């Protein structure tokens, strides 16, 4: 992937030109600040541009959705974050939000309405599926021919919001062999990051959760572990390299795989 600068409009810039974008791309904190996750953000933004989706980001006006605070038990901080974000989103008369983070997705979709934030919130895999459906996104075969891909269900997309098939449909556009782990879909094992665990040491046990999951990935002999959550991505990368120092299984977000196959 090249390192050329992307021109991504912010909502406020578009507003100055009298334009209201169809989608607000909610980047999320991982997507904005984590070096690995930033690549996912970039890949998805390129897809949006190539597919001529009208979108903008909030930029500095975006703040953490509050998910890790809420799940750590700090309801005050969560609601402070939520209400501040809702004020911004409502000021722009936001209708559609797309995000590449299942945690932001779940919080914005399910927990913001009770606090006055009513939006149509979709996950980036849902938008990718729509773009394929509408023939706005085309991928050339060959990139992943002969490769074995397994998909890790992020808890906050799968069990939390019942989205299992859409990411798999999108992956099926790649000319690769899709294999399932022993524990998948409703039985999928967590990567270990949820519930604010990302930000703390884990409790005493005989193994780390991401290592346990990495063993299940390894058992499939997959070349690529596909995911659709920046936190799962980080955790599984760590888990796989801890589990096997000479690990060759790549962890890629679905957006990155699609961007690659579309030569973006």
């Amino acid at each position: 992937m090249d390192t050329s600068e992307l021109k991504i409009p912010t909502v406020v810039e578009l507003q100055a030109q009298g334009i209201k974008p169809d989608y607000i791309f909610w980047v999320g904190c991982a997507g904005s600040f984590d070096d690995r996750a930033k690549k996912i953000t970039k890949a998805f933004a390129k897809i949006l541009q190539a597919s001529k989706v009208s979108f903008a980001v909030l930029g500095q006006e975006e703040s953490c959705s509050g998910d890790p605070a809420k799940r750590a038990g700090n309801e005050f901080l969560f609601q402070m974050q939520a209400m501040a974000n809702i004020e911004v989103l409502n000021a722009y008369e936001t209708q559609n939000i797309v995000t590449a983070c299942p945690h932001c997705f779940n919080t914005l979709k399910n927990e913001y309405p009770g606090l006055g934030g009513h939006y149509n919130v979709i996950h980036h895999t849902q938008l990718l599926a729509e773009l394929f459906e509408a023939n706005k996104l085309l991928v050339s075969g060959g990139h992943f021919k002969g490769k074995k891909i397994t998909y890790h269900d992020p808890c906050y997309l799968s069990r939390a919001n019942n989205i299992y098939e859409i990411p798999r449909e999108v992956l099926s556009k790649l000319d690769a062999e899709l294999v399932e782990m022993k524990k998948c879909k409703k039985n999928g094992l967590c990567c270990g990051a949820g519930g604010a665990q990302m930000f703390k040491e884990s409790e005493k046990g005989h193994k780390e959760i991401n290592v346990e999951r990495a063993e299940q990935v390894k058992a499939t002999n997959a070349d690529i572990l596909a995911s659709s959550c920046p936190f799962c991505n980080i955790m599984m990368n760590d888990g796989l390299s801890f589990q096997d120092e000479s690990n060759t299984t790549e962890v890629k977000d679905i957006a990155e795989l699609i961007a690659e196959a579309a030569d973006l």
Partner: protein
Amino acid sequence: MSTILSSILFLSLWIIALFVLFKNANKLKKAINQGQGSFDKSNSSVRWTQMLKVAFGQSKMGARPIAALLHLIVYIGFFVVNIELIEILIDGLFGTHRILNQVLGSLYNGFTATLEVFAALVLLAVVIFWLRRNVLRIQRFRLSEMKGWPKLDADFILYFEILLMLLFFGMNTSDMVLQSRGVAHYSEAGFFPVSALFAPLFESMTTSTLIIFERSFWWLHIIGILCFLNYLYYSKHLHIILAFPNTFFAKLGAIGQLNNMQSVTNEVKAFMDPSAAQSTDENTVASFGAKDVTDLSVLQLLNAYSCTECGRCTSVCPAHLTGKKLSPRKIMMDTRDRATALIQDKEQKSNEEKPLLDGYISREELWACTTCNACVEACPILIDPVSIILDMRRYLIMEESSGPSDLNSMMTNMENNGAPWPFSPQDRMNWTKE
């Protein structure tokens, strides 16, 4: 025994059994009502569907096919065999013999045969259940929270069910032999394909001995059923009743959605816009989160009493699978045990200061949860251990400010710069340039 005397005895037994049942049901209601708020009855049509599907239709059991099949047999068998209760009730009160024969006529043979087949299947299923617990030693039945009473309780239920089924067959077999001898009162009624196999055991007995056996089986069977009914309150077996209200009142909508605390919303709104603050009653100082069962909701307590301790939740919990202390099943059992202990304390006016937090559930367990909802997904009757864990975390964070220090830095970052990491909002667009 004269008919009138036995009728009176029979009626008294029922009255005593129902009286005790009523008393225990009241205790249970009191225990659950220690919780906050009331049950959500909104969207009742969706709730009825959910209950019919999940509790009545057993829709979530299938994830483990062997257990599901065995459970289904016992479940259907329970309904079918209990139809016989109607007949026992009338026969017992009026001294009749197999009264339904007169109502059902030619169908009665089919009726009794169906009961026999189901009773045999139940017996088989229960024996396999016992083998799974005691011979196959399936791991989820053998975790630390299952030591002592929970293990005894589980086995006791199985022994009880075996005994009830054997008494049922004993009753039918002796009756059948008496019928074949043309003994007065034992008019020919019913077809007993399973009991027929046991008939040779009784055929050598004299008629008077046989009558004593038949009467004993009949009485012990009904006494057994009444005892079992009253054992429920003390047992995980309560799920055979509570699974229905529990699935009815369970949270609707996305599993991932956690409740927003209204008490916090009021305070945050007042903080963000003091002028618009409602002059809420200053005296009602809210306490946040749950330290004890009285801080939990009535639904969370109903959840606790509905739990059958099957351990499907714990067997899929990522924290448990990697050796952490957390077991979602233990969270539910602790909640129930504490709610029961608290009711007893109140009755005996004693005051044992052993709240749910630290007294039963440790902080280490609470902080090990990833909120992945695998336990919620796995529960066949929609119990939600995550909500209890979250409410207790809320207490730890908002009342005691005693979370893990890493989490405190995460939250400080969020307060200061709107992200869980120490990055400036100014850098939010850096990804476009890298």
